[in-house]
């Protein structure tokens, strides 16, 4: 079966996020002066072919741990899956 996963990689709390700060600083210019605590992360979508969803999820967890995130600076979450219906 083919399973679709979404991995959300976010900077660890407390770690400075210059990119988030830059986004936040530019918001007043388009009329939003009430937005704070902007933090930028990364969203990765991937399909995995495996015999069970549990097996696929375990592989995604490993991919996220070993490559998609850096444990020193980032946390990750593997989000709800939906089995994909058709091809690419």
């Amino acid at each position, binding site marked *: 079966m083919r399973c679709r996963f979404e991995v959300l990689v976010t900077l660890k709390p407390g770690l*400075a996020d210059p990119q988030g700060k830059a986004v936040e600083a530019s918001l007043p210019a388009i009329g939003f002066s009430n937005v704070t605590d902007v933090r930028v992360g990364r969203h990765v979508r991937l399909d995995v072919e495996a015999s069970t969803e549990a097996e696929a999820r375990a592989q995604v967890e490993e991919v996220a741990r070993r490559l998609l995130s850096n444990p*020193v600076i980032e946390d990750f979450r593997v989000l709800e899956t939906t089995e994909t219906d058709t091809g690419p």
Partner: protein
Amino acid sequence: MTIATPRVGVITFPGSLDDRDALRAVETMGGEGVELWHADHDLRGVDAVVLPGGFSYGDYLRCGAIAGHAPILDDVRAFADRGGPVLGICNGFQILCEAGLLPGALIRNASLRFVCVDVFLRVETSQTPVTSELVPGEVVEIPVKHGEGQYVATTEQLQEIEDEGLVVFRYADARGEVTERANPNGSIDNIAGVRSPAGNVVGLMPHPEHAVDPDVGPTGGQPVIASLLASALAGASA
């Protein structure tokens, strides 16, 4: 009796920019530069390994992340485990952190701006293959040029780094005072370079290989490269 020449390998990754300068710096200081290729499983019997600056695999994911899994990194890891001297400069530093050979990580400069400037570094330890010819407290002038050079670490890592004396260089002023003003990228505790607990793996953001020729700028890289050559020679004859 023959006078041995230390052989220093410089790995070229797709996107490396400073591999030529690193080879040239090694040769200028009296060593033999040996070209190494990221996709090979071959260190060609070198006495020391340099991971140069520039970029690697586009740094598409995080700087150094994909290169941290390059084939030759298996060999670098084995070489490091045997006590061989390994130096990562700029992107090479990022790669060594991503590969888990050095503690910490490098993120976007606090200013969000690329910095290209000559900086002063205060030497914190001479117990590394790149500072053996320097004494703690000594100041060297070397350029930095990077967009992602802000050194960070987890609270536990930072504790270990400071307790175990793993900081090799700190950004300082010309007199060796570690000040906020002297910090070009927001690195925690002004850390410019660190070593592994065993001491033989070192990474730093500034570029010693760009600072060996007095015709083109400061020469603070000379004692760093000279130390590396001496360490390489010591390992080769051991």
